[in-house]
């Protein structure tokens, strides 16, 4: 019997070629993931000798829900959008993080003062980047629209508009284009009339919209002429301009910005190690590396490290023109507006 057990054990070991991981970190991949690997994962591995499996996911909380419900936790640390963080935390998929253990900034500022306000607003996460949904124009045929109102003006600016197929951001922009002040947008959207008004405004450009499903499609649409102007995550357009010399320009008017945070999966056996990673990854220098993909660091001390030439391309330089995405609003209305949005699409 003992022999059999040894045999089984040997088989089990040889059958799993992956080396046991000390920590599984999950994020969004692409250029963003590469920047995180370079500035956060690799230095942490070098310093602590921890094995890290760095995985990609597409956002949302479905996979976390599945892992916690099944009691089979595979991820330890996860990069999550604040818009999802609100729900993931309240539904018990994430550990509460003791924010007092976060290290001071490299210039000596205590963590509580060094992080920008929204970065520590939720007890389950530590802010990682500020990113933004902007619109970008292909400047080959002239400068194009410069404001959200002009983005909705199909007479002055004909051509296709690429928008991501979901209510988020589109509803906000429709109201702003209709003359609503940025600070009133979410209050108005909570009412039936406000929602109807947003759909009416979207109706005026419906024929000219090209819908897409993932951020990666936005620069492609702009590049191949599928759209004259697109909604996009700012980093994607930045990369297209920077790396491929694409003739795009970013318009910051009424951009909708949000944070990504690092969070820890509820019930992970590696909680201490996960916390150690987050403490490391949100120090001043690793955070400042996020400028590679034009996302703003969430520490003031990290912003100070950035060269002036880069700062203008980061959402953090344009916060006063922007609107903070309201995670609480979307937790309330994400599902009902999602249904209404799909109904509107079918009309």
């Amino acid at each position, binding site marked *: 019997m003992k022999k059999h057990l040894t045999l089984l054990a040997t088989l089990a070991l040889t059958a799993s070629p992956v080396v046991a991981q000390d920590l599984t970190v999950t994020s969004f991949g692409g250029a963003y993931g590469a920047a995180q690997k370079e500035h956060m994962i690799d230095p942490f591995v070098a310093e602590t000798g921890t094995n890290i499996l760095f995985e990609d996911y597409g956002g949302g909380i479905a996979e976390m829900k599945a892992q916690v419900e099944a009691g089979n936790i595979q991820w330890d640390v996860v990069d999550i959008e604040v818009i999802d963080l609100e729900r993931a935390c309240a539904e018990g998929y994430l550990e509460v993080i003791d924010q007092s253990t976060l290290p001071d900034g490299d210039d000596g500022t205590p963590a509580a003062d060094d992080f920008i306000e929204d970065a520590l607003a939720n007890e389950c996460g530590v802010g990682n980047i500020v990113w933004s949904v902007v619109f970008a124009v292909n400047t080959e045929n002239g400068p194009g629209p410069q404001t959200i109102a002009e983005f909705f003006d199909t007479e002055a600016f004909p051509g296709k508009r690429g928008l991501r197929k979901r209510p988020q951001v589109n509803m906000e922009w429709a109201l702003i284009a209709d003359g609503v002040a940025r600070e009133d947008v979410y209050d108005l959207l909570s009412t039936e009339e406000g929602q109807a008004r947003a759909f009416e405004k979207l109706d005026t450009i419906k024929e000219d919209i090209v*819908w897409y499903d993932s951020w990666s499609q936005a620069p492609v649409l702009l590049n191949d002429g599928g759209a004259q102007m697109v909604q996009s995550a700012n980093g994607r357009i930045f990369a297209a301009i920077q790396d491929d010399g694409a003739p795009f320009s970013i318009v910051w008017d009424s951009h909708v910005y949000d944070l990504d945070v690092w969070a820890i999966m509820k019930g992970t056996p590696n909680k201490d190690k996960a916390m150690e990673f987050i403490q490391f990854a949100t120090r001043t220098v690793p955070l400042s590396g996020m400028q590679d993909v034009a996302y703003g660091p969430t520490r003031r001390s990290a912003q100070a490290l950035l060269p002036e030439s880069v700062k203008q391309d980061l959402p953090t330089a344009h916060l006063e023109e922007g609107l903070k995405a309201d995670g609480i609003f979307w937790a309330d209305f994400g599902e009902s507006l999602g249904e209404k949005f799909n109904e509107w699409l079918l009309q």
Partner: protein
Amino acid sequence: MTTAPHRLDPADARNAAREVRKRRLQAFLFVVPLLIFIVFAFVAPITTMLFRSVHNPTVANLVPDTLAALDDWSGETTPDETVLIQFASDMKRMANDRTSGQLADEINRALPGMSSVVKSTARSLRRVEDTEIAANGASLLLEANDRWADPATWHALRSAGQVYSSSYYLTSVDLERKADGSIAQRDTQIYVKLYIKTLRMALIITVLTIVLGYPLAFFMAQASDGLANFLMVFVLLPFWTSLLVRTTAWIALLQTNGVVNSTLMAIGVIDQPLELLYTEFSTIIAMTHILLPFMVLPLYAVMRGIDQSFMRAAISMGSRPLGAWYRIFLPMSLPGLSAGALLVFIISVGYYITPALVGGTDGQMISNIIAFHMQQSNNWELAAALGSLLLVLILLLYWLFDRLVGADNIKLG
């Protein structure tokens, strides 16, 4: 041979019976792995899904005492103080266990906008003393948010508190149960339209694969072995390339400045690029391409088995070729056609990736909205109900098909 020829003596009969049992057992053992696989990979998930679509104990587990206290509530005014105090103490407990978010999600489904009300109320009650709640729970609750005075809020809680509920199925067909128990149309009308659209698109795709696939299979069945095998490679080629590659290839072909538009513009047929990608048209074209092998393979297999001398005999007896095909060949190839049509139709009804990538606005199918509820709204119960309804719809169509054509008439070769 002196004994009666047709009688086995009891010992032989027993042996024979034992032998039969042994063979049966052997046969059974051979299929055991498959059986286990089917149970785990197919039966269990589908049963779980069906069950989830009617069974949701989340709220009942979170606030059982509040729900019990609500039993006596008239439904027309704010519930009385005992209910409010009970709920306030439940809220405090949930705020400390971090389960208030689950309640928020469930109530929000019945009454959009409640998620933040539940969460903020839970936050404000988290650190209140138990004795304080027992004394002033009702006013604390109403202070935290005045929506707790609204009967609609409590109707939402009560309906979310049902462990077994048909509400997800009602939602799947755009209906809802009002507070007085009557069933009415929902404000948002979407799912029935999507089911109809899905079935319509699946039908168009099936017809297109028949139009394209039947002549090809016919030609291959008449051709020499060498030529038929050579053509077969082209039919099978799509099978060997990844689905994503094939779909992406269609994006490259159909996009605004893609191959099709530039060619048409170069030869002067059009002067403005046509909008081809992200439409219903592109979904249908790409899916027809991807599903064509499922039509050609059964058709070809059946046609190969049809003796060609039948056609020759009919023609030699004076039938026109088309007439001979219609009266001889078509009925004989019908089993393959049925199999192919059924395969293509059923696969396309549940298709997800291609509509998501090339479908844009018009190309959405029911599977895309199921994915929305799985991944974004996290309403797995509704996703399960929508999926179950799709399953029922397919079974219904299969039954209809069986009545009209006969399931015996399906042949894959």
